[in-house]
């Protein structure tokens, strides 16, 4: 949908077109800067006028995002980005709607709107900046903080397991889920473009580093020495192979996944699970989304990408169908319909 332009004008934009005049106020070194650059790279590739893009966010460091994008933007209230964006999109389905949210904004206070937007398959693209902390309020744990983490509100360490965003999305009926890393800008750009091409709700979890309050929280995944062994890139139709030597892979053993080494115990590339992002059944995508170090690498890239009708298209269709078949064309018609009588 989003690659057609309303007036069929040629749209030739560059990164600079999307840079805003506002001073970017994130901490130096914050992962958000990298993601901002990515979106400023992605937006010219949407094939849409700047006016046809709307960025919606809640509250949080991440949610400052709209102020820095030279499009229409709505920086709203904490947790409500998905609900507001739903209204924007339904009001004007021609807009390309991008939601930016933090792990707190999206999975704490905003959890309900998030799972419902996912369930309804609203045609929007959501970037969830997961720094596993409340950054803006200065470092309290979030629903994505790992068990045992000491934060301002968990001096003895947290005693609750975090959400796995991917599992939550798939559990809510999500059709598109991808995971990227703030500093892997090339990869993240690709993911965003894949999201744009997906009709329906696309959720991209970005592992984002908060320099100040959760610095290094993704280090066991993104660190230079570990990243090859701790990330497996999901590419549709390709075997899930990873590792510095590209000799490790994922195999489905009965009902569970396991990490195997190619060349050991008679394992060959053929034994490795081939990624199928189009698989309707949720089981295998859940398993992929679930993986965490140290036992497993983290799945990066598009994990799930399944087609389904979007809510906004359905609404448009019903409206067209109903308007075509009804005799009531105006409110005057309506007022005069049914039982009426005249007084003379």
């Amino acid at each position: 949908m989003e690659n057609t332009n309303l007036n069929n004008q040629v749209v030739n934009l560059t990164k600079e077109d999307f840079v805003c005049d506002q001073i970017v106020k994130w901490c130096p070194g914050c992962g958000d800067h990298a993601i901002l650059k990515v979106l400023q790279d992605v937006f010219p590739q949407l094939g849409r006028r700047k006016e046809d893009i709307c960025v919606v966010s809640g509250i949080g460091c991440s949610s400052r995002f709209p102020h820095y994008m030279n499009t229409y933007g709505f920086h709203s209230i904490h947790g409500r980005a998905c609900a507001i964006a739903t209204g924007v999109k339904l009001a004007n389905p021609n807009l390309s709607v991008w939601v930016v949210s933090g792990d707190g904004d999206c999975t704490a206070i905003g959890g309900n709107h998030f799972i419902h937007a996912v369930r309804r398959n609203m045609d929007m693209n959501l970037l969830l900046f997961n720094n596993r902390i409340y950054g803006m309020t200065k470092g309290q744990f979030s629903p994505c903080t790992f068990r045992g983490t000491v934060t301002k509100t968990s001096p003895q360490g947290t005693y609750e397991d975090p959400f796995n965003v991917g599992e939550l999305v798939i559990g809510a009926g999500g059709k598109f889920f991808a995971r990227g890393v703030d500093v892997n800008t090339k990869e993240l750009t690709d993911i965003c473009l894949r999201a744009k091409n997906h009709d329906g709700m696309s959720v991209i979890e970005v592992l984002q580093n908060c320099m100040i309050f959760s610095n290094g929280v993704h280090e066991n995944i993104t660190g230079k020495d570990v990243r090859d062994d701790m990330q497996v890139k999901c590419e549709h139709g390709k075997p899930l192979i990873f590792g510095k030597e590209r000799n490790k892979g994922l195999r489905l053993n009965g009902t569970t996944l396991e990490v195997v080494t190619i060349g050991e115990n008679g394992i060959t590339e053929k034994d490795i699970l081939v990624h199928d992002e189009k698989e309707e059944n949720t089981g295998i995508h859940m398993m992929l989304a679930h993986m965490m170090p140290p036992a497993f690498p983290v799945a990066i890239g598009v994990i799930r990408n399944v087609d389904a009708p979007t809510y906004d298209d359905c609404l448009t269709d019903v409206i067209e169908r109903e308007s075509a078949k009804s005799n009531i064309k105006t409110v005057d018609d309506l007022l005069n319909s049914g039982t009426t009588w005249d007084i003379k």
Partner: protein
Amino acid sequence: MANRSKVVELEHVVIRFAGDSGDGMQLTGNLFSDSTALAGNDFATFPDYPGEIRPPQGTVSGVSGFQVHFGHKPVHTTGDLCDVLVAMNPASIKANMRWLKPGTTIIFDVDSMNDKALEKAGYTADPTQDDTLSQYKVVKAPITSMTLEALKDFGWDRKAMLKSKNMFALGIVMYLFNRDITMLNGYFNTKFKNKPEIIKANQTVVAAGYSYADTMEIFANTYRIEPANLAKGKYRDITGNVATAWGLMAAAERSGRQIFCGSYPITPATDILAELVKYKNLKVKAFQAEDEIAGICSSLGASFAGCLAVTTTSGPGLSLKSEALGLAVMTELPLVVVDVQRGGPSTGLPTKSEQSDLMQAIYGRNGDAPLIVLAARSSADCFYSAYEAAKLAMEHMTPVILLTEGALGNGSEILRIPRVADLPAIVPPIAKANDPDYQPYKRDEETLARQWALPGTEGLRHRISGLEKANGSGNLSLDPKNHQLMTELREEKVQRVANYIPEQEIVGDPNADLLVVSWGGTYGVVLSVVEKMLEEGKSVAHAHFRHIMPLPKNTAKVLSGHKKILVCENNNGQFVNYLREKMPDFKYEQYNKIQGLPFLTAELENKFNDLLK
């Protein structure tokens, strides 16, 4: 069919149809009001459902009622005490004792009377035998058996035949009010299209009831209510909730905006949403959200994107919308919030009507967050109030809370059908593409409204937020002086709406000794009483407020010159407190009924007369 009893002329009548939930009283009431329309009377109706979905049969809590108030004179209320009660079982009598007055005619199905029925109704003895009903005229009709008799040739089973009991009762009532039963045929023909047998059966039973009343001479006399002196035009019957939905749709059409309604079901507001979802044919976008917060937030998003945005709810839902309402105030976007008030606080009395969300509507947000508050005064008026709410929201770029009430929403009245083109024009301040002077928070000099710059429009890209921003540019601003300025501007913008609304009206002598003040759904009953007392030459006047925030410009003048001001409300004194605050130069007395029930004319009259002493 002509009617042979003595005919008495009446000015107006209140009739209540009451029976067990399965007895079809809503249908009966609707049919009767249809014939009332054809008879040219003014009327208003009110359904009185039980709280449960399927309450225990035959019990008081299972009684379903439908009241029709009709008259030759203008009808302002759905009526309080009944002239006629149709009671299909003993529980229906028990449940409605509160609504009887000396002399009320009770048309009672004697066949329903048996020990079990009495017990279920909570009677220890037959009320028609002891002096329970001695003050009333009880007409004992064998409705069940006569219905079975009338249908005996249809070859139906007993259960199917009993479904028509209500038609027999209707026939009796048609006789009582000298109505031609053929008036009902139109309705039967539409409702039971392609079911000729059913139409036939209904007609048969109605006729049987009519003849029974006639032949048995059960009434000493019958009544005629002359046609009302209504303005010429085409009329319809409309409930408040439907009127609200249609008023909003009319405003959307007139302003050229699509309507978007994000709502979550809640009694008694659900019907507005349920009405709006029907009109996909008119491009109404109605979105049933996951909760009230998503309801208002999706609407605010839609407002940003250029729709006439609406969210509908009742008290607890309004509470949940508080935070997002603040965002609407801050982003200065148009939004209509309809609150169909019910008994509070908390879940309260969800099926009862009340006026107790006023203070929450005015003040229920963090920070200084002013917005427009309006209140509808009757079911049909919901149409115009909703229209005005939408007009003010869009033209002044601000959220508006429209207060209606359960009784208005569920009740119905006749509406003289307007032409949308005759309604006041609505011209939202939509920013022009590529306007070089566009600034998100630049304001209109008169209204102080900012412009509405719709996403998709070239050259107007901008970002809004709930943070404080600089007047004009709309950039985020921590500047102390700017915050004071913006706080004052937000207040002033709402206050200036007083320049765009009618002056406050007063009925009666502007210098009457007693000024009665009301707002919302108490309009009709207060007005009836005041009118009556005016006829009696009492020094009383009535000011009914539709515009609450801001108050009309001449409010102080209207309040001046009276010995006493009495504010009547169905809450614990909210409007009166608000007046004390905004119009501190006057002394107010208050009269508050918080019973989930409307004022009775008699109690108001007593109160007014007391104050005049």
